[in-house]
């Protein structure tokens, strides 16, 4: 240790230097941030009237004019940010005019140039802004950037920019296939990104669903998750028998949501499926459809070995109007000994209690009375819980 003393002192000097450098760096960054913030705050005031002008004239036919005052770099960046927000808030005509304004302000050219920069940081920033401004010309450059980019958060920034700028389906397709090369699973995020593109999403996702490539199929499933179009139902039909559990579950979920009409054979297959979650999804979907044709199936499901399915079909029958409630009460009575009867009766009573707090609404009132009436008719009248006159 004694011999290393000189080494230690040398090290000490280095450390002191480093510390000082860091402290200086921190303060410099802080001061820069403070000054930037002050400039932005001042700019808000300067900019107010111009903003009002924009908002009032968004609908008109005239081209929006650039601000009548000059701005420095920080102010321009602030203005661009505000414009980005507005572009994202509106569709159609107003959005278009704002895009033209961005062009007039020189933002488009500036960022197109920056995209060619050698600094990675600048390129990503440019990609982001070009995406916000939906610059179609940027797509080739962005696609090139995407190809050589590694797998991290910025990858998706560029992908999203491409989607926003996409000229047609081809651009989106290329973007998707480039991303797929990373062999990672991010269908939900990718589906969200694709929806930013100004193309026919349903057709594209439908294509992916039929493609046979498992990754693309998953992407297609993620994309049509919330669709209610019957065409989607036919697109996923094949996947109902998929060997992959997740794919099957998602396909069933989408099919049930989007099919306006459930063919008998499909219904039977799903409701008697060996997987509990499939049966559950089916029952829940039947509940939503509120079609009396499925009364028997719902009744059968009350005897499902899994309690969740029984519970879901009981809840569903309660929503199926008078017939549903009658079937439910009848089944509850039948199954009284087997334990299930009491559970179902409990579910009915819960619903009665729940509805009794909502009687100011006409629809709930109707349901309340329907259930009450059938309940009292089926079970012993002396077991009345509620009666509201």
């Amino acid at each position: 240790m004694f011999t290393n003393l000189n080494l230690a002192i040398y090290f000490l000097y280095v450390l002191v230097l480093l510390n000082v450098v860091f402290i200086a760096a921190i303060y410099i960054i802080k001061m820069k941030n403070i000054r930037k913030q002050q400039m932005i705050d001042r700019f808000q005031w300067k900019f107010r009237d111009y903003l009002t002008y924009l908002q009032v004239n968004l609908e008109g036919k005239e081209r929006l004019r650039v601000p009548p005052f000059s701005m420095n770099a920080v102010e321009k960046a602030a203005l661009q940010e505000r414009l980005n927000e507005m572009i994202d808030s509106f569709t159609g005509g107003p959005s278009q005019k704002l895009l033209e304004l961005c062009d007039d302000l020189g933002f488009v050219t500036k960022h197109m140039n920056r995209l060619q920069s050698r600094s990675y940081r600048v390129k990503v920033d440019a990609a982001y802004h070009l995406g916000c401004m939906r610059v179609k010309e940027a797509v080739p450059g962005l696609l090139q950037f995407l190809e050589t980019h590694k797998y991290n958060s910025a990858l998706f920034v560029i992908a999203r920019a491409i989607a926003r700028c996409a000229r047609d389906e081809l651009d989106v397709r290329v973007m998707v296939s480039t991303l797929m090369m990373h062999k990672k699973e991010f269908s939900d995020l990718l589906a969200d990104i694709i929806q930013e593109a100004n193309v026919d999403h349903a057709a594209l996702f439908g294509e992916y669903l039929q493609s046979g490539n498992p990754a693309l199929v998953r992407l297609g499933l993620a994309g049509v998750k919330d669709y209610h179009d019957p065409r989607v139902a036919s697109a996923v039909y094949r996947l109902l028998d998929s060997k992959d559990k997740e794919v099957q579950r998602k396909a069933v979920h989408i099919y049930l949501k989007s099919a306006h009409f459930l063919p008998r054979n499909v219904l039977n297959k799903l409701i008697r499926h060996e997987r509990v979650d499939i049966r559950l999804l089916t029952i829940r979907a039947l509940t939503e459809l509120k079609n009396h044709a499925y009364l028997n199936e719902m009744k059968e499901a009350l005897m499902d070995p899994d309690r969740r399915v029984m519970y879901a079909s009981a809840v569903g029958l309660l929503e199926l109007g008078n017939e549903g409630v009658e079937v439910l009460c009848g089944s509850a009575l039948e199954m009284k000994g087997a334990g299930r009867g009491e559970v179902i009766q409990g579910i009915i009573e819960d619903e009665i209690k729940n509805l009794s707090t909502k009687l100011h609404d006409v629809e709930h009132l109707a349901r309340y009375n329907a259930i009450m009436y059938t309940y009292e008719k089926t079970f012993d009248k002396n077991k009345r819980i509620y009666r509201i006159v």
Partner: protein
Amino acid sequence: MAVFMRDQVVDLNQDLFKFVSFKCVNGLACGVILARCANLNQKVLDSLKNYMNKQQPELSAQYVYDDQNQVLSVILDNWKLSATHYTSLILKDFLQDHHFLEGPIVVASFPESGEPSSFNLSQLVGSVTHPKKDSKDIRIFTDQSTGEEIQSILVVDTDEVMREFVRLRLELQGYAVSEAKDGHEALEKYSLMNPDLIITELNLPILDGYQLMNQINKRDSKSGKVIVLTDKHLSSHMNRAFELGAADYITKPFSISELTWRIKKLNA
């Protein structure tokens, strides 16, 4: 008292109107059940009355059968909508068991379902004599009167820029617009100013959009239509909003001209 009318040209509308408005003027509620039936006679009416009284001993009602229009009217003394509706279930059971029911049953209670005006009552009778669907189900009558034109609007959104923008545009169209930045403020302003239309986001602090709609429903006034303007794209959000009585659901990004058009459409 069961009254049976035959071979008399009876103006069912007029009689109903007289009876109902008389009750309402005296501050009492009046429940009305109209059912489309065939081939009723005095004996049937009497057995019906007995049946009904057995099921609901506290019932005090008048039974009138219009042979011409084949409409059975049951008028319930001082009964509100809830109890009237419940009674209609019993009635329907009876009529169906004895195969008398030919068409829909319409239930109403005045003044809860609306003004006891002759217009409303003729609408009521019309919905039984000339129903849109012939199915034998129970329907609840609602006031068909056209709402007043929208003049005042309340805009609720945490995003100040969005609020300002919408307010500006709507004021240009001639509406009187007020703002609120959260659900609580919105409810306050609603109680104070009673706007005709509320345009609200769903995600709000303190009270969210759903709670706001809930509270508005509970306040029981007829005005106060709600349009939801939100960035939530899930169908579950839309369903819930409609369940709570929203008149329309618009997602962001949106088109301001579409918004104004939808507002105008609500007036119709």
